[in-house]
């Protein structure tokens, strides 16, 4: 119910639906507070036993109230009602039930509880083995699950971003705000990150007095001051969910989750925060107590009951009992009593203490032995035998410092026996994460004020920053002491340790009995502390239980550590805007516009979009286009955009020496205006990349690389330049994007180029022979580079112009080439022609082959050192039976070949032992009228004419092939030299 005089009722009224029923709440509510105010008792079903569950907490630690939010593709499962800011039109629903949340047929599991405890699956579903994947696992997954995905693409927008600060302050409670005020005065950049939609942290839940007024007054003043400072930035609705090395933190900011209208703005932003220091003011999380039937709706954490009453004016019940092992439980009783609610009793497990309130009935040194009310608590029974009728039971097992983030870099928490609490264990200083306030194990407000002053001022002093004045605050006095009475031994199968995973005291006992006594084993065996809440309210209970069983204490038992993320994060938030077509950048070639107008079909090669083929009217099948492009090129002239090949400008007095070292073959004596083919090896002697390098001047070379390897080769060359040969005068600049380059191939290529090259440059064979290159001008003064090189085996050139002229040049070549019936050709025709000619490419230089495999061993200089030279001499690389580069054609010419087929001698079984090689590249040759292939086979050069089988085990297909020369056309090279 709602306290009608609470200030929240003066705010905007909001309507929302839960499980299809309409309710009202107020701006400033969470979904959880609004449900409590509307007397909604059951919000979900438990994970395994499908027991009815109600709201348990008021924050990220919530184990029960997991909600499916939204509908259709916007649906998001497993959101915590306690973290959902209420908005007009919100649609929420319970999850994990069969039937309705109030009448869940799967609740039959609860009756079978004694048979399906921890480890049940591992022991039971062992036989028959084949039933596991098809029967057992699907049934179990249906029976025990969390929310359901919509299975549709999430249409919301997500984004990423980067923030920098000197001090990152996580949390905006009193210690966070004090830290921010102090650190801001040093002039450093301060970033405050708060998970809640309002600032103030735990103060919003309390009736604390600061400087003689309600603490909300001080929050307002502090926030106003911080907002006025230019060096302070505040992000609310933002959760830091991970801490990484070097002061990097990840945080999710909810930008539009609290707005109904589907916004064009991103729903969430995944921030990467760089900071010099982190102040962890993340407060503390209350823990529960395990006692029989302690999971009924209406049994809540005492601090949360206080939060709902103080902050939201929402009461779960009116006859309330408090069950506590510490002083803070009494505070809840005081607050609620002051609001006029009936406090039936405070049951304090501690013996020998005095009641902290004389006006509240108290039962000291007692425990709860039973509770009543399946769908909402009705009564409790005490160890003394007394039975009390209640409609809400507030439980406090003490507070645990919220040190989740200090564990992300393997910081091991340390047990503090004073406050019965794990602390960050001194890793904070090293990791530059400094806890303050409750996160440091300080729970009374007056001590938090003095301690935060002390910690932050000493930090500022240590950093030698300008020293601000300490913040003087007077506050109400609080006291906190706590016992470790967390688990009861009676009715262990109904005493829940971990509400989210339905882990009971019995499961812990079973784990102990079966030898899983280490905390790591306990966690895996029982699932304690797993799933969305990561055991925030339950871990200590589990450890206390194990400590009792082992007859030791928690510090001896130890603890598992938390891992990122602190709260569940939508996968889409990790992807950000990198989805679909925007997954990665697209690189367009200079001829892209002209190619698009000519209906090119594009293919992704790395980030590039390259024209794959250019279909013409009437062509229905891709190979019709490709065959035509090949034939027209071989008969007359074709033009292909080869800009994507890597181009590296190499200048310097020592660049020929540098090239001698990175290539296996010598370049020092390459004449100016000549091109040479080069092969690079890795340091282990395996082939790395190949390409041509042209010498434009005494100290100026242009290297080309394969498209795929362009960035890697440049990186490798830079490594050589900077680390291996730093004393050489060499400079490398990638000019791949600076020059548009086109292959002009075919018998009429020279005649076409003669139409655009400015005279008096002569490109006849006599003056511009095969492997020549030159800088010249075209089309009336446009600077260009012409290379007489051929990938197709035809008379061919590659012409390069500055990129800004690339589109126009491609168009011009095609229009000027009309008289020769010039054709644009794409990567498919390019590939077919290189296979026909027998050139190696990426399929052959694939990281598994050597110069010896490729038949290029003669390119390895014996005189000079080069990368990979020594290791290429290894015995295994030079055996006589290594697989060598060869050509293959089907014996039955009409048969199709498949790349990847393994080569086996005729009559032998296709086994690893009989494997003699493989087909690396396959194409239909329109020139020859049948399929051809390149590949590798043992002693290939000595087996020309021999027949072997090409076996494709994936397609269960065997084709007899003949070993031939890899050069299917013009093996002597007359065409390209003509």
């Amino acid at each position, binding site marked *: 119910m709602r306290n009608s005089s609470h200030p929240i009722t003066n705010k905007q009224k909001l309507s929302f639906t839960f499980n299809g029923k309409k309710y009202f709440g107020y701006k400033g509510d969470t979904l959880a507070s609004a449900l409590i105010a509307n007397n909604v008792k059951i919000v979900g079903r438990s994970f395994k036993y499908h027991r009815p569950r109600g709201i348990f907490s008021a924050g990220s630690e919530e184990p029960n109230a997991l909600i499916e939010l939204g509908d259709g593709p916007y649906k998001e499962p497993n959101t915590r009602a306690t973290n959902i800011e209420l908005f007009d039109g919100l649609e929420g629903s319970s999850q994990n039930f069969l039937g309705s949340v109030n009448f869940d047929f799967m609740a039959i599991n609860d009756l079978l509880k004694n048979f399906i405890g921890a480890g049940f699956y591992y022991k039971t579903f062992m036989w028959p083995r084949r039933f596991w994947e098809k029967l057992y696992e699907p049934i179990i997954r249906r029976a025990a699950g969390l929310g359901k995905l919509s299975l549709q693409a999430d249409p919301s927008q997500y*984004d*990423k*971003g*980067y923030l*920098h600060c000197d001090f990152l302050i996580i949390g905006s409670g009193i210690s966070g705000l004090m830290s921010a005020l102090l650190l801001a005065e040093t002039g450093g950049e301060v970033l405050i990150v708060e998970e809640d939609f309002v600032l103030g942290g735990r103060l919003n839940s309390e009736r604390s007095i600061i400087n003689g007024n309600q603490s909300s007054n001080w929050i307002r003043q502090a926030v106003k001051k911080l907002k006025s400072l230019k060096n302070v930035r505040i992000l609310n609705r933002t959760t830091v969910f991970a801490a990484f090395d070097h002061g990097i933190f990840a945080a999710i900011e909810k930008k539009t989750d609290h707005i109904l209208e589907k916004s*064009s*703005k*991103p729903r969430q*932003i995944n921030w*990467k925060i760089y900071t010099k220091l982190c102040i962890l003011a993340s407060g503390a999380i209350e823990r529960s107590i395990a006692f029989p039937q302690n999971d009924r709706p209406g049994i809540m954490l005492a601090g949360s009951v206080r939060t709902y009453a103080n902050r939201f004016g929402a009461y779960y019940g009116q006859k309330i009992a408090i069950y506590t092992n510490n002083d803070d439980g009494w505070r809840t009783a005081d607050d609620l009593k002051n609001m006029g609610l009936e406090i039936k009793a405070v049951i304090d497990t501690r013996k020998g203490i005095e009641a902290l309130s004389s006006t509240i009935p108290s039962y000291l040194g007692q425990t709860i032995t039973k509770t009543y009310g399946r769908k909402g608590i009705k009564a409790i029974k005490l160890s003394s035998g007394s039975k009390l009728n209640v409609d809400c039971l507030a439980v406090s097992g003490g507070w645990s410092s919220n040190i989740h983030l200090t564990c992300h870099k393997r910081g091991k928490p340390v047990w503090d026996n004073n406050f019965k609490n794990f602390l960050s264990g001194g890793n904070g200083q090293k990791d530059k994460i400094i806890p303050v306030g409750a996160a440091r194990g300080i729970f009374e407000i007056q001590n938090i004020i003095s301690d935060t002053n002390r910690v932050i001022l000493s930090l500022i002093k240590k950093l030698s920053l300008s020293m601000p004045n300490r913040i003087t605050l007077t506050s109400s006095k609080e006291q906190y002491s706590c016992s470790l009475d967390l688990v009861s031994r009676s009715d262990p199968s109904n005493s829940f340790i971990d509400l989210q995973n339905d882990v009971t005291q019995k499961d812990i006992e079973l784990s102990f009995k079966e030898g899983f006594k280490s905390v790591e084993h306990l966690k895996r065996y029982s699932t304690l502390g797993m799933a969305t809440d990561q055991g925030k309210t339950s871990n200590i209970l589990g450890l206390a239980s194990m400590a009792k069983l082992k007859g030791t204490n928690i510090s001896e038992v130890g603890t598992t550590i938390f891992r990122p993320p602190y709260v569940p994060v939508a996968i889409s938030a990790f992807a950000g*805007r*990198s989805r679909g077509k*925007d997954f*990665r*950048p*697209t*690189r*367009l*070639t*200079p001829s892209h*516009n002209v190619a698009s107008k000519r209906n090119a079909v594009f293919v992704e090669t790395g*980030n590039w979009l390259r024209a794959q083929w250019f279909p013409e009217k009437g062509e229905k099948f891709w190979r019709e286009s490709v065959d035509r492009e090949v034939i027209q090129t071989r008969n007359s002239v074709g033009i292909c955009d080869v800009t994507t090949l890597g181009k590296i*400008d190499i*200048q*310097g*007095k020592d660049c020929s020496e540098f090239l001698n070292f990175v290539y296996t073959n010598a370049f020092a004596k390459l004449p100016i205006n000549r091109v040479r083919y080069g092969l690079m090896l890795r340091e282990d002697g395996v082939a790395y990349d190949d390409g041509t390098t042209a010498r434009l001047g005494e*100290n100026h070379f242009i290297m080309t690389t394969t498209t795929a390897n362009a960035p890697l080769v440049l990186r490798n060359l830079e490594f050589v330049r900077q680390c291996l040969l730093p004393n*050489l*005068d060499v*400079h490398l*600049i990638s*000019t*791949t*994007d*600076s*020059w*548009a380059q086109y292959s002009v191939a075919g018998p009429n290529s020279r005649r076409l180029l003669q*139409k*655009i*090259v*400015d*005279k*008096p440059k002569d490109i006849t064979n006599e003056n511009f022979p095969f492997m020549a290159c030159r800088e010249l*001008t*075209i*089309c*009336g*003064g*446009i*600077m260009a580079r012409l290379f007489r090189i051929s990938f197709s085996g035809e008379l061919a050139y590659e012409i390069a*112009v*500055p*990129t*800004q*002229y*690339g589109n*126009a*040049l491609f168009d*011009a070549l095609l229009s*000027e080439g009309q008289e020769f019936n010039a054709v644009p050709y794409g990567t498919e025709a390019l590939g077919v022609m290189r296979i026909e000619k027998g050139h190696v490419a990426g399929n052959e230089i694939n990281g598994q082959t050597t110069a010896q495999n490729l038949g290029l061993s003669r390119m390895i200089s014996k005189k000079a050192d080069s990368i990979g030279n020594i290791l290429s001499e290894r015995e295994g690389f030079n055996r006589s039976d290594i697989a060598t580069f060869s050509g293959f054609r089907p014996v039955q010419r009409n048969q199709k070949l498949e790349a990847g087929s393994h080569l086996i001698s005729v009559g032998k079984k296709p086994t690893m032992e009989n494997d003699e090689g493989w087909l690396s590249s396959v194409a239909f040759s329109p020139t020859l009228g049948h399929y051809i292939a390149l590949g590798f086979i043992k002693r290939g050069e000595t087996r020309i004419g021999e027949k072997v089988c090409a076996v494709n085990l994936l397609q269960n297909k065997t084709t007899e092939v003949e070993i031939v020369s890899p050069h299917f056309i013009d093996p002597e090279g007359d065409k390209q030299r003509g």
Partner: protein
Amino acid sequence: MFRLTLSIRKGINNVAKLDLKIKKPLDGYSKVINQIKIAEYQFDNLISLAIPLKTERKCKLNFKKSLGEPMPNIEKSIIDKSGILGFRIGLDLLLVCNPSHSSFVKKTVPSLKQAFYITDQTGGWCGVRVDGDRVIEMLERICPLNLSQKIFAIGDVKRTIMDHLNVIIFRETEKKFILFSPSSSSGSFLKSIEISSRNI
């Protein structure tokens, strides 16, 4: 002789009757999104200057002589009287961007060539100028650098990665930047800037 694209269009006889038109990477794009003006930063020439080994002193003198400004330190820049922008992006590497000064190719480049190794990169880069009160908010979405003026002052330049792309960022004023990215992926980069501007 070093030749640049625009230096050799005159005085050539016996040429094919073709006129190759220049295509700028973003075709002169200009738009305002969320108070951020996004416009292609157009230039006539962009060259890189590599400092030959152990010739820093000679290069400094030559730079001063050629451009009238001292050679900038690493990640710093100069703008000469005619608007030519020079910035040093590494120990031995500078970029010089000529927006439209007519004598750049005929005089400045040959002068620089006396000391530096020069590579024409005019077609390799695309410039985008972003300008406006919310420009830092926008850049926070793609730029991993700390753009606080204490760290990245006016005139500073850095190489970085934005949305997977190699970018050189230059701060012209408090709220005005020029971003250079490879021309082949300029469409993706522009889209990234547009999305970032819309998303703030």
